[in-house]
């Protein structure tokens, strides 16, 4: 497995305070004829079902507070109907909230007038869609250059820039094809190239890979991670697939019925699910692949001898551990400092999923990778 492709290992020793790029504050969204009239009731805690029955309004999002650090990959996860697609559309105001604030670089997006909003969409945030959203009557080349032509850039320059991104996503030779002539995976590469071509700092991805079959999805995830390693965009990625979330996320927020039930470091979500909903979610994942050594190690013991990085997934530590004397190894952080120890038994127990591993996970919210 290609460990370096994972951004969580690329994050490095960033213990310094992170710059917040997108900050969502007390966001509410209610759908219906007169959302403002029922806002106070929702704030007082009226449940979704009662709101629908008594007032005929649908609660979309309730008191969302998320800080998304710059240059990181923030995943927002939830099942269908949890409000995740509604939430991402608030960031570039494809949907306007009922109440709340959306701060980007400290500026409230909701205060933008029409012109500022167009500028914001053209230059600061681009988007990738679940069903691609490509223009069927334009070629791959024209689709990739779409955002640039909207900006008013000359056709020649737009095409030139577009070609660079077509090459980056591996679609050279398909410039003159129409989207309808491409497979789903290739169409989404066009969607990705189109979004990247505008040089926007924020990349919104709404279930971008969900419509693709598993092998192609893995492929696209790797392309995204490779690009991110170099581009360092602030990516907000919506998905309903926890495996996908854990593979790519720097941070995760889990939504349920329009509320955030847990957010933070992916490792923390696996090791300390906040409630039954998250526990159910986490139950089926491949722990050997997604849990890292630092989440299960014993912090008290600091033996000498061979070492492994704390970011190593459990399944990759099995071989070194079985080769090690006494089947025990030290765990080091990025700076090479010893921060704990693991034994083969701990790792196997942890991979066996189930209960009990939560104990070893105390304090994992600190970042020491």
């Amino acid at each position: 497995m290609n460990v370096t492709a994972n951004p969580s290992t690329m994050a490095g020793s960033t213990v310094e305070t992170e710059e917040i790029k997108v900050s969502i504050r007390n966001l509410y969204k209610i759908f219906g004829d007169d959302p403002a009239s029922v806002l106070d009731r929702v704030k007082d805690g009226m449940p979704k079902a009662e709101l629908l029955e008594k007032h005929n309004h649908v609660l979309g999002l309730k008191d969302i507070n998320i800080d998304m650090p710059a240059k990181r990959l923030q995943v927002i996860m939830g099942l269908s109907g949890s409000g995740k697609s509604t939430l991402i559309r608030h960031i570039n105001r494809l949907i306007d909230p009922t109440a709340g604030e959306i701060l980007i670089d400290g500026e409230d997006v909701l205060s933008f007038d029409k012109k500022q909003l167009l500028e914001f969409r053209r230059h600061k945030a681009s988007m990738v869609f679940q069903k691609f959203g490509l223009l069927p009557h334009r070629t791959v080349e024209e689709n990739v250059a779409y955002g640039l032509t909207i900006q008013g850039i000359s056709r020649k320059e737009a095409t030139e820039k577009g070609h660079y991104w077509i090459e980056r996503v591996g679609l050279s030779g398909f410039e003159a094809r129409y989207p309808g002539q491409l497979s789903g995976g290739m169409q989404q590469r066009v969607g990705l190239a189109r979004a990247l071509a505008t040089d926007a700092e924020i990349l919104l991805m709404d279930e971008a890979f969900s419509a693709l079959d598993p092998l192609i999805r893995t492929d696209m995830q790797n392309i995204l991670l490779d690009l991110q390693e170099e581009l360092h965009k602030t990516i907000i990625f919506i998905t309903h697939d926890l495996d996908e979330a854990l593979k790519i996320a720097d941070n995760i927020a889990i939504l349920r019925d329009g509320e955030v039930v847990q957010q933070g470091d992916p490792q923390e979500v696996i090791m300390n699910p906040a409630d039954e909903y998250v526990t159910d979610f986490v139950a089926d994942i491949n722990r050997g692949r997604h849990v890292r050594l630092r989440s299960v190690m014993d912090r008290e013991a600091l033996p000498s001898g061979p070492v492994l990085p704390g970011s190593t997934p459990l399944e990759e530590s099995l071989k070194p551990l079985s080769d090690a004397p006494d089947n025990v190894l030290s765990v080091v952080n990025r700076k090479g400092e010893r921060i704990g120890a693991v034994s083969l038994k701990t790792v196997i127990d942890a991979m066996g999923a189930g209960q009990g591993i939560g104990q070893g996970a105390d304090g994992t919210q600190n970042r020491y990778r």
Partner: protein
Amino acid sequence: MEFLTEFPTMGRTDLRDLKKAIDAGFREFSRSYGEGLEDFFHPLLKFMVWFEKLLVNTPWPIVLLVISALVWLGSRSWKMVTGTLACFLVIGYLDMWEDTMATLAIVSVATLLCVAVGLPIGILMARSNRAQTIITPILDVMQTIPSFVYLIPVVMLLGIGKVPGLIAVCIYAIPPMVRLTNLGIRLVDREVLEAATAFGADYRQKLFGVQIPLALPNIFAGVNQTIMMALSMVVIASMIGVAGLGVPVLRAVSNQYLALGLMNGLAIVALAIIFDRVSQTFGRRLQAHRNEGAGE
């Protein structure tokens, strides 16, 4: 009992007075505004006269050449060009050339007018639900009301001639253009439109870059229908003084000339088929991405 068997009416004198009042009111209206309206439509009349004269006075081989070229540009099919040529040669040989040119002129102008007026109305309808609820019943009336009924006020206002004929044709032929433009724009994939919005496209960029191009198949179906309906109005338009193939048909009906009616009727059919096939293939060719669609 009489109440049940005889429907209670408003009374003969009252009814007569009502009708008289309406007639008088409209006559008054046409007296004060008729001239102004005629002036308003004068440029249209001049254009029509000029176009008809152009078609009739140009030597027939040149007209044939131009028509063939247009058919080729529209359809890129030699079969279509040959068929068209054959039709026009037969029409000319049977001495219907001048009438055919006159019909061609009014149908072309009517279609242009319908597209120029119908397209913006269709866009407006697609943009606002309120516009749609107001315009839809008007279109229903325009399509279903017997043409003779609206010929009366048109003739009262503008008299007999080309312009009232053109207006009568347009009233009948414009609804499909409006309806199908509206439908086409409303059917544009929401996700594609959302993508355009997300990339910061403004209203114009969305309309001309996404909505109209994607609505083209439907818009072209509308143009096609408009042409067909304009052609079918040719005979009725001839009743109020529009020259063309309708005039001999009308004469044939009133005098029971079978051959005359049949020949001119078939000439209208030939025109209709040519217009239909060429506009359809042209519409399809504009949609290159649909034809080649493979590899789903």
